[in-house]
């Protein structure tokens, strides 16, 4: 235990000395603070209209009910704005006081008539429908849910990367050889190195939940998912360290790892449920599903147990397949 903690302390010191640990801790926190500012903008997504300044206060007020309004000077300025990359509809009035709706031509089919509908609605004297609103109380938008889960996953992977970079550093400094003639056993070395990969994600997951003010998240479930997911990141960290003879090779291997992580996350979020069985082999797919459900508070302990079982089963399989290589690489 003493030796184990000594390795943990040494890794911590080495990382702090090069500011690496500080950056790794700060990166998800900075991103999540950025996300906190980003979320209101995404939640406020609505239509965009470029209106001629001279169009009149009533018309401007009417368009502001449905989206963001930019006031520009004349038809040319509006046309220049409409051809930019985003979707925005231009509206001017011609000499006969008729409205001219200017579009680029590549707008989403479902939204292409909104400007005409607003003008048509202004022309109508009677409301066609009586509309009431209610909601089911889901105050968390998709961006909050996926943003929080992706940052936690990122913290888990970054912690694995720290392990990988530390091992590469040991190899480059030839300290591995020195360690092999000490009383330290290989298992102690592995567990000692892994501690940082368990502690960091847990601390960061708690920060993410606190910064995003996710009050309904069950902390026990969150920590269970984070710890289970950290195990696979630790193995990846060791594999990166073992397979990379120098930092360049380490970065190259991380590139593959990030591809694997993003494919698992994007697949779990974007792919229709019926086609997600393509991703069942990826432990990070189960981590994504579990984290999303923990954040939305739509999960039971039984489901957490199932997801954890998947993650642990696949992690053990990957460990068994790579144990020989890791052992050999650490020699």
């Amino acid at each position, binding site marked *: 235990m003493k030796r184990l903690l000594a390795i943990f302390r040494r890794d911590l010191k080495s990382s702090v000395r090069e*500011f690496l640990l500080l950056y790794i801790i*700060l*990166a998800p926190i900075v*991103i999540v603070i950025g996300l906190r500012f980003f979320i209101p*903008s*995404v*939640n406020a*997504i*609505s*239509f*965009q209209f470029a209106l001629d300044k001279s169009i009149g206060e009533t018309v401007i007020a009417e368009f502001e*009910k*449905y*989206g963001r309004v930019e006031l520009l000077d004349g038809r040319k300025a509006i*046309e220049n704005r409409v*051809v*930019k*990359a*985003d*979707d*925005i509809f231009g509206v001017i009035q011609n000499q006969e006081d*008729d409205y*001219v*709706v200017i579009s680029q*031509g*590549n707008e989403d089919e*479902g*939204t292409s*008539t*909104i400007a*005409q*509908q607003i003008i*048509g*609605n202004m*022309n*109508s004297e009677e*409301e*066609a*429908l*009586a*509309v009431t*609103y*209610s*909601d*089911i*109380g*889901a105050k968390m*938008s*998709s961006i909050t849910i996926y943003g929080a889960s992706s940052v936690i996953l990122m913290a888990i992977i970054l912690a694995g*990367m720290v392990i990988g970079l530390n091992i590469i550093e040991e190899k480059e400094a030839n300290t591995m050889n020195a360690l092999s003639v000490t009383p330290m056993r290989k298992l102690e070395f592995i567990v000692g190195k892994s501690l940082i990969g368990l502690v960091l994600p847990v601390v960061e997951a708690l920060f993410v939940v606190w910064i995003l003010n996710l009050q309904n998240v069950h902390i026990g479930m969150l920590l269970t998912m984070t710890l289970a997911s950290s195990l696979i990141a630790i193995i990846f960290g060791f594999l990166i360290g073992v397979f990379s003879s120098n*930092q*360049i*090779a380490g*970065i*190259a291997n991380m*590139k593959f790892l990030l591809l694997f992580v993003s494919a698992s996350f994007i*697949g779990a979020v974007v*792919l*229709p449920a019926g086609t997600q069985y393509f991703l069942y082999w990826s432990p990070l797919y189960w981590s994504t599903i579990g984290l999303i459900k923990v954040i939305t508070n*739509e999960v039971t302990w039984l489901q957490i147990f199932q997801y954890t079982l998947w993650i642990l089963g696949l992690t053990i399989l990957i460990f068994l397949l790579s144990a020989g290589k890791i052992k050999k690489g650490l020699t």
Partner: protein
Amino acid sequence: MKRLFGLLKKDFLVAYRGYFFLIMLVVALILVVVTNWLIPEKANLDVKVLYAVEGERTERMNSLLGFLQGAEGSQRLDSKSAVIELMQGDKNTIGVIIREAAEKPVIEIVLQGYENQQSRNALALSLSAAIDAQNIDYSNIENVTLQAVEQPEIPLNKSFVPLMILNEPVMLGFIFLATLIFMEKEENTIRAYLVSPVRIWEYLLSKIIIMAALALISTILITVFTVGIHVNWIMLLAIVTAGSVFGAASAMFIAVFFDNLSKAMIWIISISLIFTIPMAAYFIPSFSPWFITILPTYDLMFAIREAIYPAGNPQIFYQSFITLTIINAALYIMSIALYQRSLLRD
């Protein structure tokens, strides 16, 4: 020129031995497989409408029901409680409950809870326009389309290709170039150039050229094996070159401030993440806050799309290309000055 070729040969060998070419090929292959066989051609990513009629169905509801039935991904359910139950399981849904009161259809729009007032108003307006299509007066409206180009529908899996090109070939240089520079810093080969006839601008240019070459090969492979050969190649290769030079020049600029890769690692990862933020706007074109549009990768992403799927908007290509060229020149000149200063200081 001879010195530049010598440097190019050396950087090519370093990149080859560092498995850069192999990684680029494997990543391209994975993306081709993912695009062609894993992402479905069709999937409804739009908000789905779940609706139910309460009480008697009347004739006045017909146009509204016809509109809802025709909406892609919509689903009719038996009751409001069934609508709410399904909505709780799928955040990408809204509910519409239709009933009749005082000889007029009354609709209750059931939302998730985080939608803003403008979205609520627009939704009500669309439903209102659907039910009252004949009575709304569109006579005083002239429609002008600036760039009407008949564009075939792009399958969902192929629509990801511009994003993949932005994320992989273009941003590849950002990470690879940083590792190349740090390797030479740690091995002190960079200092050897101080006493050799090699100029610093040649040293940096050679690395940028290697990164651009990697990006171009990767782009060609991904494009040919996913979209095919019918794209605007001149536009695509030009914008990918400008984009990869931007990635490489940015990495070069950042690398000068750090001694080794460990110290720079998080900056490299964070900045590459910032550069990919505009991808959030790809499927939501009306989402364009200033902090996204000021990033050069925002226009770059749409310029790549224009090159692959022309929509009659070449301005976006010219705008992005010119902006990137100016930024690249500035980053390159600043990097030369900073590297010279840093070498002399050491």
